[in-house]
Structure formats: structure tokens, C-alpha cells
């Protein structure tokens, strides 16, 4: 279990009558070995084996088998694991006759042999896959549990409410990263799963890239040391939390995930953390106005680890009539406000493009190029350049490309929430 530290970046000063307080909070887990016994860890890999996976002359299912074997080889000795093949129902490929196997040379070999026999045939019912993962993971209560879920298609063999119920039943049981292969899957569906289950959704543009992504996700999961961390926020009476977003390494709005602890205290689940990991959060809170010269605590940020509160960082509001103080722009807040605007501009630009509104698409994607360029978000600039021709990145002048591969547009959309850290742009 790690110790956590939180650092606040904000302009504490508000003008007379000001009520909106913005702060960026950097949360860092301490580096180094965890005290006491290491946590039990569970990894479940769910691969889509529906009929569509037979596509690309069998390349999809072949890649899925290979990527799953690589993931199995990435498991640390002693980690509990299972492999699930998903169609209109979920089938446990490995282990046999028990929910989870403990990784060692023998079980890894057996699991890989079982994966080799997986065939692509049937439908897609993601909710049933989640339910299967959940029932396997229930065999190791208290473990840090992680699921990799890969699909190439829509959730078409169950009703939407069945998926919603499966997600709700999985919240708090495990974290889930989703991978969408190709362009026939629905971003909103996988986003719903990964957001609720504190993971990310990414695209696998071609089958050949699946292996790398499976390995990366599994390695990341193996690095987690502290499970079930929550950010606890106290805000004053009469205040309103406008939002709490994770802003680095990726945008994720945590506002709807608030769990009320007491009238003034809310918890936001952050999932599992690796030693030395750090993440940035942007908090905006509206507080009752104070008189000039007075100070109010706008928020107290705590980390809850294993049910124990760890020390806080304070977000303050000080009212002043000194404009030099109240108009100061905090670098971190400004940076992440820009990264959020960048993601919105991409989303809106692509939506306008899909609906044939080229004028709006050009303006939005131009603004996106400008923001990404300004803030040093080179990866996003690269993805944007596959959708637009950039004339002047400083001014944000672009032209829509006539021919855009679906996979490029989708990749830009899926990865638009990736942010860069504040120091990279300065």
C-alpha cells in the first residue's frame, strides 16, 4: 500500500463578488515497495470470438489468439487469471473447473494451448462477458482485479439495459480497459464500460497492433500496488462542485461518479495505482462569496486508501480588490482548460463532419490544430493531420481532407482525450 501526496495549483485570489474557484490537484503515489504483504492480483482477458472476428481472412482471430498469448506471458508469477471467449454468451477458455488459475509455467502453457483452440463463431453480447468476468473475479475478494476486453463489433445480441445492468454489477469489482478492433465497434458502448469501470477505451486500428496493446495493458495492470483508492472532497456548505475531472494522463470526467459520504463530503473512485504514479485533476467549485479580505476554504482534498484518510491538500479562496492578484492566470489551470477544449473541439469537429456540416467541422478542427500545436500535444497534431490539411497551425487554418480513412477519423476521436502534461508545453 502506497502513501499518497496531493499538491494544489491555483490562483487563490478572487475579485470582489467572485465565486468560482479553479484548481489543479496533482496526486502522486509514493515510489517503492508496498508495506506488508503484496495485494492479490487478478487479470481476466476477454476476447471477442464472434463470427465477424473471422474477417480479414482469419487475421483478426489469429491476432486475437497471439495477443492473448502475449498477455498470458506478461502475467507475473502468482497472479490469478482467466481467459474468456465472448460471443452471445461468455465461455471460459481457461482455467477448467475452477474460476481462476495462479500463473506459473504450467498454467501459462495450458492457457496458451487452450487459446489456440478458440474459434470465431457466434454473436456479441458484451454484458454477458462482463457478468462472466465478474463471477470469476468474485472468487478472489479484495484482490486488485483488472479486465482487458477486446471486441470488433456492436453489442447486438442483448438489449442495452442488459449491458447497463452488467456494468452496474461490475462497478467496484474490477477495472476494465476496452479495445475496439477496426471501425465496426461503437465508441459510446465501450466508453460506457471503461468509464464506469475506471479504465480507458482505445482503438486497435489493425489486427497487427493488437499484440502490442495487449502487452502494454497487461504490463500496466501488473504494476498496480494499491487498489480501491478514492479521492475525498470536502466542500463548504452552500457550495456546488461544478466538476472534478481527471486531466492527465487522460481526460475523464469524475463528476458523475461522486459518492456522497456526508452532506459536505464526496468520494470519487480512482481505482488502482502503481508506485510513483501521478495523475492530475481539475476541480471547479462554486463557493458562497466572502467579503474582500476574507478567506474561505473552497475544498479539502484527501485520499482514501484502504478505508483510511490520508492528509489533505487545501484549495482556498481569498477575496481581494487588488486586480493584479485576482486576474493572475494559473498556468496549470489554463493548460488543462486548453486540453479539455481541445478534446471538445475534436469531438464537435468530427460530429459536424459526419453530419455534412463542413463549415463547422473546419472551424472546430482548425481550433483543435491550433490548441494541440500551442500546447505541444504532438501526438494529437499527428492524428489531426490525417483528417485535415493544416495551412497555418498558429492561426488554426485548415482544410478538410477529401479522402479520410474511417480508421483515421475513429482513431482521432478515440484518442482525443489524451492530454499532455503542463511542463511539456512551456
Amino acid at each position, binding site marked *: 500500500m502506497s502513501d499518497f501526496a496531493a499538491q494544489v495549483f491555483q490562483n487563490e485570489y478572487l475579485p470582489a463578488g467572485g465565486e468560482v474557484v479553479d484548481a489543479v490537484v496533482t496526486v502522486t503515489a509514493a515510489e517503492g515497495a508496498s508495506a506488508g504483504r503484496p495485494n492479490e492480483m487478478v487479470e481476466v482477458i476477454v476476447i471477442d470470438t464472434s463470427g465477424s472476428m473471422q474477417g480479414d481472412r482469419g487475421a483478426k482471430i489469429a491476432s486475437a489468439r497471439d495477443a492473448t498469448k502475449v498477455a498470458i506471458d506478461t502475467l507475473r508469477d502468482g497472479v490469478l487469471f482467466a481467459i474468456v471467449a465472448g460471443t452471445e454468451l461468455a465461455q471460459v477458455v481457461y482455467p477448467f473447473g475452477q474460476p481462476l488459475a495462479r500463473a506459473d509455467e504450467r498454467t501459462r502453457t495450458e492457457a496458451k494451448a487452450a487459446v489456440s483452440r478458440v474459434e470465431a463463431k457466434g454473436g456479441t453480447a458484451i454484458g454477458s462477458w462482463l457478468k462472466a468476468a465478474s463471477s470469476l473475479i468474485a472468487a478472489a475478494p479484495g484482490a486488485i482485479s483488472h479486465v482487458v476486453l477486446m471486441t470488433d463489433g456492436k453489442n447486438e445480441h442483448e438489449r442495452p439495459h442488459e449491458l447497463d445492468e452488467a456494468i452496474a454489477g461490475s462497478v467496484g469489482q474490477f477495472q476494465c480497459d476496452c479495445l475496439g478492433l477496426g471501425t465496426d465497434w461503437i465508441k459510446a458502448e465501450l466508453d460506457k464500460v471503461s468509464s464506469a469501470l475506471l479504465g480507458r477505451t482505445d482503438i486497435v486500428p489493425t489486427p497487427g497492433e493488437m499484440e502490442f496493446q495487449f502487452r502494454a495493458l497487461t504490463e500496466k495492470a501488473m504494476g498496480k500496488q494499491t487498489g480501491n483508492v478514492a479521492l475525498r472532497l*470536502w*466542500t*463548504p*456548505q*452552500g*457550495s456546488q462542485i461544478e466538476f472534478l475531472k481527471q486531466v492527465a494522463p487522460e481526460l475523464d470526467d469524475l463528476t458523475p461518479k461522486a459518492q456522497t459520504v456526508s452532506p*459536505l463530503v464526496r468520494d470519487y473512485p480512482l481505482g488502482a495505482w502503481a508506485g510513483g504514479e501521478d495523475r492530475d485533476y481539475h476541480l471547479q467549485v462554486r*463557493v*458562497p462569496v*466572502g467579503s474582500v*479580505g*476574507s*478567506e*474561505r*476554504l*473552497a475544498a*479539502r482534498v484527501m485520499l482514501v486508501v484502504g478505508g483510511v484518510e490520508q492528509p489533505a491538500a*487545501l484549495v482556498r*479562496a*481569498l477575496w*481581494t480588490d*487588488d486586480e493584479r492578484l485576482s486576474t493572475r492566470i494559473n498556468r496549470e489551470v489554463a493548460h488543462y482548460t486548453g486540453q479539455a477544449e481541445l478534446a471538445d473541439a475534436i469531438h464537435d469537429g468530427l460530429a459536424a463532419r459526419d453530419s455534412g456540416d463542413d463549415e463547422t467541422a473546419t472551424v472546430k478542427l482548425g481550433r483543435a490544430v491550433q490548441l494541440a500545436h500551442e500546447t505541444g500535444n504532438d501526438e494529437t497534431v499527428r492524428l489531426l493531420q490525417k483528417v485535415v490539411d493544416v495551412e497555418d497551425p498558429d492561426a488554426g487554418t485548415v482544410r478538410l481532407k477529401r479522402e479520410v480513412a474511417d480508421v483515421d477519423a475513429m482513431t482521432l476521436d478515440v484518442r482525443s482525450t489524451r492530454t499532455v502534461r503542463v511542463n511539456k508545453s512551456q
Partner: protein
Amino acid sequence: MSNEPAPDNGGGPSEARRCPTCSEPAPPETKFCENCATELDTGESLSAGPRPRANPAVSAPCVDCGAAGDNIDRDDYCAMCGAKQPDARDHLELDDGAVAAVTDKGLRHRRNEDACSIAALSTGAVLVVCDGVSTTDHPDRASEAAAEIARQVLERAVSQTLATEPGTDLKKAMQDAVDAAQQAVLAVEPIPGGQGNPSTTIVAAMVLDQGDGKLDVLVGWLGDSRGYWIDRSGATQLTVDHSWANEQIDAGLMPEAEAQADTRAHTITRWLGRDATDVEVSVVRQEVPAEGMLLLCSDGLWNYAADPESLFDLVNGMHHLSPLELARQLTAFAVDSGGHDNITVALARFGDQATMSVTDSEPAP
């Protein structure tokens, strides 16, 4: 220290009064331990030293929402509405009759990092003003610790001089006081990864009434907190700021106007703290007629009355006020002028207050 709990000597005749440091029996009414010279609590206000730092609002309801006092957390915020509760040091007044001091947070700073400590003695006075350096860690604690210990050392020196040791070297006593203050500042731990080692300025004064109509005034300082002597003929600045501009001028490196116009002009070059290269105190000693007043202040005041003439003009109309009221008025003047820094004013008045006025004929109330 005067604010340490004293042995309870009110309980019964068997409970002898003892020194809290060395346990030496101490006769009633003695001010210092005869064995180790620790200041003893006489059960009365010997001096107007620092008031308890405990926040008086802790048991009081929240100043903003009125929530019960047990809602005030350790950081002095209300756990209901978040309002910061006033700190005792935001505005503190010390009154020892002829000697008084006021220290105030001002309008711009988040806390008061100035500190002062005073003592009126039967035959003189001791005053100390410290201005914690804002760009260092815990400047408020550094200034408070320095002012308190310096006042104790000086008070002891003055008492001993007058009582038993006429030959006491007062300049050495001043250096001893500054050395003790330096030790106290060094004892304030910096914040790991913080801004810098706790640091503070200091200006300290001993005034001895020689009994022949003259006062022996000795002022020592490090930094830009100042001492002035003010009498019927005007105000005289006794101290010379340890500032970048003054060093340039003294070294002949720059004409005065140019040095004063530089952005570094007011940067202090001497202070107390771990980064101070030496803490040899600058001392000025003057014999003055026993009618007038000694004023020590932080730059929160003198920034708005930089030359002695403007300070004299300010004081001259307020001769009828008590030292405390005068200190309040000067503080209010600095707040009204913008209050950009913490403000501390400590003053000691000698002789007939009415003689202070040369131009103002308004009768005392």
C-alpha cells in the same frame, strides 16, 4: 518564558515557588531565578510579552456562519462554511502603560508575519520588532521566536544594569540578545521542499533612564525594520536599513537616486536565519533628554512615511494620545494608506506627554 505555565503556588503554604528551569526555590515577587536567571512568572503582567498563540476563536462560534466552536478545524477553517477564522496575530495590541505596541496583518497579506515584544521597566524600557521574511518558510514563527527571546535577554540586561551591575556592557547585551534570537530562528524548522529557511529582520531597543534628565538609548538592528527618536525638535531616524540600495550607495557603486530607483533597492542584505552570513548587530547609541519617544516599526509603516519629517508630521498632531492609542493611530494610517504589508509599531514615551507638542495646541482630553 513568561508564557510557560508557572508552578502553582496558590494552592497552599507548603507549595514553595520554584524556578521552572532549574527548580531553585524562588522568593515571592522575584522576577528572575537567582541560580539560572530564567525569567519567573510573578503572577502579574511583568511585561506585555507575546499573547498565547492559541486561536481565541477556537471555542467561539464561526465568525461567518455561526457554527459551534467545535467545528473549527486545526487549520482554523470552519468545517461547515470553510471561513478562515481570525488569527490572534491578525491584530494584536500590547499595552504596558508608557510602552505599547500594535501589530496588524494589513490588507494584502494572508497572515501577520511581524512580531513584537515590549516591556516597561521602572527605569527604562525594552522594545523589539521583527518582520518575518515572506519568501521563507514560517516567517511568522521566526519573527515571533526572535522578538520574544530578544526582549527577555534585553530586559534582564537592563534590570541587572540598574540593580547591581552598573558596568554591564549594553552593546554586548544587544549582541547577546541578537545571538539568542538567531538561535531561536534556527530552531524553526524549514518545510521540506519549501521556499527557504525561516528568516526575519530585527530591531531592538533598550532605554535606560539615567536619573539626571537624560536617557541612554541603544538600538540594534539587522534588516530594514527601523528605530526613530521623536521629540519636540523633530524625528530622527536612528537606524540605517540594511538594504541593497544603501549598500550600493555606501560602497560608492551607484549614485543614491539610481540605487533607490533600482528594483532591488529594498531587498534586505542582513537578517536572522540559517542563510544569514553573520549576525553581528548594527548598533546606535544616543544620550537624549528624557522627554520624547522612541518608535520602532516594520516597513509596513515606514513605507507610507519614509522620511522622518513625514513621520513627525503624523505624530505631532496626536500628542494627547496614550502610547497604545498612538500606536493604533499610526497602524490605522498605514492600513488606510493601502496596508500592502504587515504593520508593526512599538513605542515608548518618556517625560510629560504634553511637551511633545510644539505646534499643536489642542488640549489633552
